[in-house]
Structure formats: structure tokens, C-alpha cells
């Protein structure tokens, strides 16, 4: 069943169109940086961008930081929001369930496909970022630089980049869980996607509001940029651990709600 869902997802031209669009922005930014040689000053703009002119090996991280606030969550929300509601809108959901693909099984398979999409997307963004970074910028094969100013060996840099890719993927799970939950509520994929995005916009907005500081630690977007902490020396694990735990709670609660709703729902589409 999971294989079936993966086949459906990755044989769909739209999936790859989303991945392509997602990669277009970091590539464009890289090209502009090379042409103008105007890097943002350290501490401004997306993380790592100020450093890539000196070391292109950091560009995967800059690329992730560029797509993380908006593009990546939109992509994840589109795919996850479409997962159940898209089948309902196309009418294929009733045939799947009458086949029968058990409701719980279908939901698990949809979740697995969304997870695969998140992982593939993040890895592709990082890989394209690496290619772009090493071809357009000077890569320093000997060492990288941590945010704290100390030097990192290429092995350390590589390992931490892999961890960062993993952390960004985990950060997206909350979005995916919101969109999947909304997707079981409605027969409109657009509605589910917009619902998930509304949550994210609200979360980002509340995060900037001082009055909302009591709930700030529980906002789904709160620890998204904590992957930067992986490049401090030593690594600051506190926010990373909290980010993973927070996403875990969101995913657990929302999936339970999605399951409870989907398994007792009348399929009228």
C-alpha cells in the first residue's frame, strides 16, 4: 500500500514540478550573488548566505534557509493537503476504500508518502545547493567555518549538514500533519492546504509579537531555524531537542485526530 502511494506521488508530474520550483529560488539567489558579489552582511538575510561567497560548501545550508520560511512549507502543505482530499475530489477515494484499502492503512500510507516527499525535497534542495555552491563559489575543501568562528573539518561540516537536512525534514512534519489532518476534514485539497498555511502564517506572526511570548515556545514554527545551532562550536542541542520534541507532539496529536476523524467519516465524495 505504501509502495502504491509512493508510485502515485512520484509518478505525478506535479510532484516534480513542485520540487523544481522549490530549487529555482536558491539557484536564482546563487546566480545573483555571483554576478553582483554582494553578499548580505553577517547577521542579515537568510542564515549562512553571508558566508557562501567565501565557502560554497555552505550553500546547501543557505539554500535550506532560503526555502525554509515559506517555499518548503507551501510545498509540503500542497502535497499533504492533497493526500486525502485530492482523492476525495477526484472520486478515487471511494474506490480505494471499497477495494478495500482499510482506512487506517490508507492514512498510514498517505503519511508515509508525505514523509518520503518531505525527505526527497529537502535532500534535493541540499544536493542542488551543494552543486550550485561548489560550481559557482569557491569551495574550501580543507575546512569550513562554524557560526561561532572556529574551523570545522570537511567531515564535521558534511556530518552536520546531514543532521541539518534531517532536522529541517523533521521541522516540516508538523506542517505535513496539519495539512493531512485538514485533508481528512474536507473534500477540497485547496482548503486543506490553505488551512495548514493559515496555521503557519498565524504561528510566524505570533512569534514576532511580544504579547504572545507565553505561547511562543509552543508555536509550530518556533524552532525551525534551530538547525543553525548545529554549526556552532560546540553544537547547541537545547533548541534542536525542543524543536524535535515539539514537532513530535504536534504530529502525534494531529495524526490521532486525523485517524479518529477519517475512520468514522461518511465518504460522500
Amino acid at each position, binding site marked *: *500500500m505504501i*509502495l502504491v502511494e509512493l508510485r502515485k506521488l512520484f509518478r505525478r*508530474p506535479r510532484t516534480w514540478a513542485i520540487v523544481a520550483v522549490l530549487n529555482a529560488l536558491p539557484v536564482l539567489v546563487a546566480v545573483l550573488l555571483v554576478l553582483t558579489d554582494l553578499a548580505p552582511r553577517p547577521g542579515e538575510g537568510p542564515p549562512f548566505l553571508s558566508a557562501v561567497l567565501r565557502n560554497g560548501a555552505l550553500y546547501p545550508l543557505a539554500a535550506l534557509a532560503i526555502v525554509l520560511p515559506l517555499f518548503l512549507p507551501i510545498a509540503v502543505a500542497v502535497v499533504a493537503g492533497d493526500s486525502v482530499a485530492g482523492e476525495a475530489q*477526484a472520486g*478515487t477515494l*471511494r474506490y*480505494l*476504500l471499497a477495494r*478495500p484499502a482499510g482506512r487506517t492503512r490508507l492514512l498510514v500510507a498517505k503519511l508515509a508518502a508525505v514523509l518520503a516527499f518531505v525527505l526527497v525535497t529537502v535532500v534535493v534542495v541540499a544536493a542542488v545547493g551543494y552543486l550550485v555552491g561548489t560550481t559557482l563559489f569557491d569551495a574550501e575543501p580543507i575546512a569550513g567555518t562554524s557560526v561561532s568562528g572556529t574551523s570545522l573539518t570537511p567531515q564535521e561540516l558534511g556530518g552536520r549538514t546531514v543532521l541539518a537536512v534531517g532536522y529541517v525534514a523533521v521541522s516540516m512534519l508538523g506542517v505535513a500533519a496539519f495539512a493531512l489532518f485538514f485533508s481528512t476534514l474536507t473534500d477540497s485539497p485547496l482548503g486543506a492546504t490553505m488551512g495548514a498555511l493559515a496555521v503557519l502564517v498565524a504561528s510566524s506572526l505570533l512569534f514576532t509579537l511580544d504579547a504572545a511570548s507565553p505561547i511562543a515556545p509552543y508555536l509550530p514554527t518556533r524552532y525551525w531555524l534551530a538547525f543553525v545551532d548545529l554549526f556552532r562550536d560546540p553544537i547547541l542541542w537545547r533548541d534542536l531537542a525542543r524543536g524535535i520534541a515539539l514537532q513530535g507532539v504536534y504530529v502525534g496529536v494531529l495524526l490521532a485526530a486525523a485517524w479518529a476523524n477519517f475512520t468514522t467519516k461518511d*465518504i460522500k465524495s
Partner: protein
Amino acid sequence: MSAVIATRGLVKQYGRLRAVDRIGLEVAEGDVYGFLGANGSGKTTTVRMLLGLVLATSGEIDLLGERMPRAGRRVLPRVGALIEGPAHYGHLSGRENLALLDASGRGGSWRTRSRRVAEALDQVGLGGVGRRPVKAYSLGMRQRLGLAGALLRRPELLVLDEPTNGLDPQGISEIRELLLELHRGGTTVFLSSHLLAEVEQLCTRVGVLDRGRLVLQEQLATLTAPTGATVVHTPAAHLVRATLDGRVLSVDGERVVVRGGDPAEVNALLVGAGVPVTGLALDRPTLEQVVLAATGASPDRVEAGG
């Protein structure tokens, strides 16, 4: 003969609206059951409850001898369904659509999958359709593909909702032949339709739904059994009345209904009296008359409140 579909006191309540009201369906093995009802009478809701898509408010459903929706995992692989029109992934070919559908549930081994898909496509007349994506199919082709999906696992029971929707007359007769052939092979067919002619040609047993209630459930042969009268067509209706005094039940232009279940006897009397007879038949109610008598106004009608 065991019951293939049996429901007892089946109810579906949507808020204040009772879409399905205490329905007791009985479909026996080997039936071609015509489930009739106007649009909005609760047919589709009932079909969806049978297949476990809509959960009943109360009542029981037995499908192939097992309780639904609990036993859905075991029962549904033995049921083929076409529910309210076909639905497919438009960017994939018909073959791939069927393979994906087959792979997404139990009861269809992947070893035999491509062979079964090819057979189902042949059965519905789509054997040569090739790799064209479904979005390029005509409405009739999609309907055929939907039917192929229902036939994939050689089901014991076919539940079909409006299976000839969107088909041209040749297509309709082809599908009818296919269903009759499957029926001869032992498949029980549950056909939901609002097309009386289709049901009359195909079914052995009918159930009629009116505003959520099952108002009629009977063998078709019983419903359309001769009434014991004979229909005479003649250009001289007044002569019939004169000859068969007291036996004439009704006169409608050239059509006279006469009491007496033996057309030969009626004919002999009329011809003996010199009445020209152009047509003679046993009087049988049509399914349409039966259904109209059993049901009220169309539920599509929304009268102004009094």
C-alpha cells in the same frame, strides 16, 4: 439459495433528514436485482452503506453472509463496485489505473495482476486502448474502465450504480450482454438505476425506494404478471362493447381492455361477430406503472410550503 445482501432496519439519518428509513433488502444468490428509485430517494446512500463507505445510523447489513462494515476486509475483495460514476487518475493510463487499484487492497496477487487487468480490459471492450492517459478517454470509455475495475477480482457480487451512464445505445447493449454473461457465470448483480427500461430488460427481482423507504420488493415476473385481462386493438371499439357486453373494462381510442385471460377465446368471439381485430395481447402492467403506483411525486420536486 443464500442471501448475498440482507439488511434489517437500515437507517441513515443526516441531521433532521432521514435519507434511508428502515430498509430491509433481500438479494439472493443468482439474482439480478434492480434497485430502483428516483434521484434523491436514498439509493446512493444505501449502496454506500452496503460497501462500508457511509456508516449506518442503525440497522444491520450482511454482505455475502458476513456483517458489514466490520467484515469489510474479508468481504469487500469479493465484491466489485461501480459507485456513482467512474473515477481514475487522469495522468495515468487505464492499465496503470487498474493495476494501482488492484495493488491497493488485499485479494489480488501481483503475480496474476497484469493478466487480470488485461482480461478485465478485454471484457469491457478496452483491450486495445494502449498507453493513452485516462484524461484523453471519452465518457463511455471511462465508464467501461470503471466497470473493468469492478471485474478485476472476478467478484461474486457486483454492485453497480448507474452502470450505463454516458454510454451510447450500442455500448448499453454491450454492457447488458456482459452483465448477463457474468450472471450466467454465477455472479449476483445488484444494479441501482433510475432507468426503468434498463432494469426491466436485465433484472429478475426489483426493489423500489421512495423517499428513503423500500416500498416494493418483489420478483419482476410477479409484478408484471398478467392481470387476467386481454388488450384488444381494433378500429371498431363500439362493436367490441356490443359483442362482449359486460366484459369490457376500459376503452381508450382503439385500445380496449377486456376481462378474460385467454386472448384466443376473446379473439374467437370477436372474429365470430365480425369485429376487425388488429392486435391482441395479454394485459400486463409495465414496470413503469408498477413503480409509479408504488411511489409518490418525484423527490426532486420542491413544492411551496403550505
